[in-house]
C-alpha cells in the first residue's frame, strides 16, 4: 500500500508516552512511540502481554489520553473519543436484549441517527457479507462466539469508517473459527480498502493479515521491530512451513524471542 506524500497519514503518532499511576508506583506503559499509518494500510501491533499494544490502540481510539506526545487522525489532532473509527474488542460486547440486526444498528442510534431503510439495508448487507444474514433476527445468546464476533465486526463497519481498530478481536475464539475469521477479515479489509490497526499476540495472525507488523516490547512499551510484508493478498496462504509467509513469521518470532530473552536477563 502506498500513500501519496500529499495526503496526511491515516494515523500519526508522535512521541507518545503513557504513564499509569498505581499503588505500587508509576508504570510506563508506552514510551516515545512514533508511528505513521498510511491510508488503506493494515498494521498489526504484536507483542507479549503487557507490552502496551492495547494501550496504544486505546489511545488511537481516543478513549484515553497520552501522558505526552500527540496523535492525529488524517491530519486532525485527536481529542476525545475517535467516533470516526470502527471498533472491535476481544469481547463482542453485543447487547443481549437486541437482535443481531439491532445490535449492528446501535452504531447509528448512538450517533443520534434513527435507522431508516437505508441503514437497515446497509446492516443486512454487512451481515450477509460475513455470512450471518440468517441470524439477523436471532439474539446473541442464540449465536456461537464466532457468529457474535462477526456481528460485532458488522457493527464496527456499518457507518463506513475509514479506520478500523481491532483489539485482539479473535482472541476468545477457538482455533478453527479464528482462522476462518482471519481469512474473512483479510478479504473485507482488501475489498473495502479500510485502514486497519489490529492488536494481537499471535505471530501467524499478525503476519497473515498485515502489510506491516509492529513488534512492541514491554516495560516500558517501545517499538522493538518493524516487519514489512510486501506480499499481495492473493499470494498469501495461512503461514506454515515452506509457505510464502514463513520467512516473515520467523522474523517476527525472532523479534518476540529477543524480547523474552531480554526480559529474562533483566529478571
Amino acid at each position, binding site marked *: 500500500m502506498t500513500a501519496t506524500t500529499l495526503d496526511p497519514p491515516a494515523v500519526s503518532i508522535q512521541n507518545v508516552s503513557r504513564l499509569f499511576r498505581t499503588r505500587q508506583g508509576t508504570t510506563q506503559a508506552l514510551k516515545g512511540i512514533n508511528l505513521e499509518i498510511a491510508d488503506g494500510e493494515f498494521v498489526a501491533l504484536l507483542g507479549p502481554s503487557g507490552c502496551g499494544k492495547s494501550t496504544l490502540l486505546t489511545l488511537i*481510539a*481516543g*478513549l484515553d489520553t497520552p501522558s505526552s506526545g500527540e496523535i492525529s487522525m488524517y491530519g486532525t489532532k485527536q481529542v476525545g*473519543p*475517535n*467516533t470516526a*473509527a470502527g*471498533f472491535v*474488542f476481544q*469481547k*463482542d*460486547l453485543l*447487547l*443481549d*436484549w437486541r*437482535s443481531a440486526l439491532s445490535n449492528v444498528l*446501535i*452504531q447509528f*442510534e*448512538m*450517533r*443520534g441517527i434513527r435507522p431508516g431503510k437505508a441503514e437497515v439495508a446497509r446492516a443486512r448487507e454487512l451481515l450477509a457479507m460475513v455470512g450471518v444474514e*440468517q*441470524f439477523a433476527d*436471532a*439474539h*446473541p*445468546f*442464540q*449465536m*456461537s*462466539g464466532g*457468529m*457474535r464476533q462477526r456481528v460485532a465486526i458488522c457493527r464496527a463497519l456499518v457507518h463506513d469508517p475509514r479506520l478500523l481498530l481491532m483489539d485482539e478481536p479473535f482472541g476468545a475464539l*477457538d482455533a478453527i473459527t479464528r482462522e476462518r475469521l482471519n481469512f474473512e477479515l483479510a478479504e473485507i479489509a482488501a475489498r473495502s480498502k479500510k485502514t486497519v490497526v489490529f492488536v494481537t499476540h499471535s505471530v501467524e495472525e499478525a503476519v497473515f493479515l498485515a502489510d506491516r507488523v509492529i513488534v512492541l516490547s514491554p516495560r516500558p512499551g517501545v517499538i522493538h521491530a518493524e516487519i514489512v510484508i510486501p506480499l499481495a493478498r492473493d499470494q498469501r496462504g495461512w503461514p506454515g512451513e515452506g509457505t510464502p509467509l514463513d520467512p516473515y513469521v520467523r522474523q517476527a518470532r525472532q523479534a518476540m524471542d529477543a524480547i523474552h530473552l531480554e526480559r529474562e536477563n533483566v529478571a
Partner: protein
Amino acid sequence: MSASGVLRTSPRQLGRPADEPKPERLPSLWRERVGTGLWGLAGIVVLVLLWQVIVMVTNQPQTTLPSPIAVAQSIAKNASLLWSGVLVTAREIVIGFALAVVIGNLIAVLLSLSRFAERLLYPTLVLLNTVPKVAIAPLIIIWFGFGPTTNAILTLVIAIFPVIVNTTLGLQSCGDDYLRLGKAMGGNGLRLFFKIRVPFAMPSILAGTKLAMTFGTTGAVVGELLAGQAGLGYVSQFSAGQLDTPLTFAAIVVLSALGLVLFYLVVIAEYFILRSRQPTH
C-alpha cells in the same frame, strides 16, 4: 419487615461456548415465569382440603377456626361489603405502589448520575431500609390523618426502598467496556443511559418492582388495621372485634387473592419486557 431488597446480583451470563450454531428455540419464558403459578394453585387446593379435615377432626368452634366452607359462605354473604373493601384497598395499594416505582426509580437515577451523591446517600438509604417501616405508621397517621391517603403513603414508604436499592444496583451492573464501546460510537450521556445502562438494569428494576408490590400490600393493610375506616384490613379488624371469625377469614382470603392478582400483573409485565432475553438460568 426487615427484608431488604438487596437480593439480586447481575443475572448476566457470559456467552456459552458453542460450535457452529443452530438457531436455538427460545425456552418458553411464559411457562417458566407465569405457568409455574398453576402448580402453586394446586398447592393451595391441598392446603384448603387439609384445613377442612383439621376443622372436622378437631371440631373447633366457628369463632376460633371456621371451616373453609364457612369462610366461603361468609364470602358469599358479605360479597358487596368485601368488594367495596377490595376497591378501597386496591386503590391504596396501586397508588402507593405506582408512586413508589416512579419516585424510587427517579431517586435511583439521580443517585446513579452522580457518584458523589451515590456514595453520600446510598448507605443511608440501605440503613433506612433496615428500619422496620411498620413502626413509623403512627407518625404517618399523625401527619396525614386517618384514611386512604395515610394508607397509600404507608404503601409508598414501604415499597420505595426495594425500588431504589434494586434500580441503583441494576444501573451499576452495566460493565465499563459496554459504556466505552458506546462512547466510541459517539454516544452521549443520554443515549448511553437509555440505550445501554437502563436495559442492562431492567431485570434488576423489575425485581425491585415485584418486591415493591409485595411490600406495598402489607403497607396498605397495616394502615387499615391501625387507622382504617374502610378497606379489607378494616373489615378483618372490626369482624374480629365482633367475633365474626368467618368474616375475618373471608377478608384475609380476599386480601390474599387481591395481593396475588396485583403481583401477577407485575410478573406478566416482566414477562413481556424481558421475553426477548436470555433466560437467567
